[in-house]
């Protein structure tokens, strides 16, 4: 794939369930080599937005483009290049870690795309010692790492993470951050939703705030001296401090 293609573009996405409007007019682009954080209170529509991006839900209005092409349905070819990790981890508890990875690798191979070998991935995420243990015996953090390993084995161009930090301990978070930085350097586009302020600041290039189903502001990691202010700008979005609107920049961003 060439550099110019944008892995994910959401254009005017709205989602309604009857009279309940979950998302309204969300425009979001995630470029290759960019890690975008999606923050917002519970019920602000983060998970719905990710589900729409990955094709599990159909938007009520708006358009989804994957790799620059309109994607009213996320076709099999699209699913080859997208990986999705949620906080429910989606692993078979009655299979071992290796079997879990192998199942999806074989499915991918049947679809005509070679997957990365399981062992180096398990190693990379610190699960080599547990490769042959049943996933049902894993801690939540281990499952989360295994789910990430599965997501990475197809060498995706777009990675969607729903609350990836929740169950991870500190070393786990650091490892996830490391992996994200490495993969970003290799051109992976990441969209992750999180409540975790520190983690978000540490790994993202850009943070967007979802508020009541619409985008409520954006903070971008700048270059040079600007970079230092990223923490404050994220804080100013108001997820962790109640003072949304005190900072003029957030207001400005919200208007834009």
């Amino acid at each position, binding site marked *: 794939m060439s550099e110019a293609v944008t892995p994910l573009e959401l254009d005017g996405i709205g989602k*309604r*369930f*009857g*009279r309940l*409007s979950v998302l*309204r*007019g969300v425009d979001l682009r995630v470029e290759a080599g960019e890690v975008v954080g999606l923050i917002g209170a519970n019920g602000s529509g983060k998970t719905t937005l990710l589900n729409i991006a990955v094709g599990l839900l*159909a938007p009520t209005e708006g358009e989804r483009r994957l790799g620059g092409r309109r994607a009213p349905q996320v076709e099999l070819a699209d699913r080859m290049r997208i990986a999705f990790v949620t906080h429910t981890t989606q692993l078979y508890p009655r299979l071992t870690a290796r079997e879990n990875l192998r199942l999806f690798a074989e499915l991918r191979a049947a679809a005509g795309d070679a997957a990365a070998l399981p062992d180096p991935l398990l190693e990379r995420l610190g699960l080599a010692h547990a490769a042959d243990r049943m996933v049902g015996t894993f801690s939540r953090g281990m499952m989360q790492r295994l789910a990430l390993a599965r997501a990475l084995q197809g060498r995706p161009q777009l990675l969607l993470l729903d609350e990836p930090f929740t169950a991870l301990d500190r070393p786990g978070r650091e490892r996830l951050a490391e992996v994200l930085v490495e993969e970003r350097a290799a051109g992976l586009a990441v969209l992750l939703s999180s409540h975790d302020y520190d983690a978000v600041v540490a790994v993202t290039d850009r943070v967007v705030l979802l508020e*009541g189903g*619409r985008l409520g502001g954006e903070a971008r990691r700048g270059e040079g001296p600007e970079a230092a202010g990223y923490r404050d700008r994220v804080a100013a979005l108001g997820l962790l401090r109640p003072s949304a609107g005190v900072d003029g920049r957030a207001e400005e961003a919200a208007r834009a």
Partner: protein
Amino acid sequence: MGRLIPVVLLAIAAVVFPLSVETIFLDVGIERQLGTVQKIFYFHVPLAWIMMLYGVVCGIAAAVQLRRQSRGAEAIAIAAGEMVIVAGLGVLITGPIWGHASWGKAWTWDARQISTGLLWLVFVAYVLVRRYGAAGSERLAAALAIFGAVDVPIIYYAVKIWKTTHPSNEVVVSLPPEMWAALWPALGALLATATALVAIRARQELCEMELDDAWVRAEDPSVGTKGETT
């Protein structure tokens, strides 16, 4: 325009209805074997046809709804599904009344009775899923309607397999012309009424969907009106 269709249909029904009563009760002779009660035939059978027709309509509309995400098709599917229940109830009640008068037994567990009952149950399930299903169950309901519509010919064919007490399909085909003449107005009146009701119901459903839109917009600050709940 859309508003006019049910009015026209109901007007047609109002004109044809007395004509149909006249032909059924005054013009047509009494059938020799079954006697006077055979006159139930003239609205029992059209009603069964209407039930099957709207079963198929519901299935086709549901298929269009799934493929095209069309609201119009969804509204028609809902309206047709409900009409299957209403017409089916009519068939299931008038049938046993006829059976009671001519065979002395209201419900004989004959194949056509059972399969009509089953078809009816399928569409009751459709309405139940639409009403009580979680978000996204409109697609499940649509699949249910499609399977239900596929059941219609199976049910029709079932009569041929089971040799039963129910008059076979040939009775309708080999009808004397005057009976046909009495069947048409009855069918016309019932079909016009049923279609009018379906059209009204479908319009209401569309209206409801647009009202949902309007409420969402009213509560959406970006349109310029400030809602209370936001």
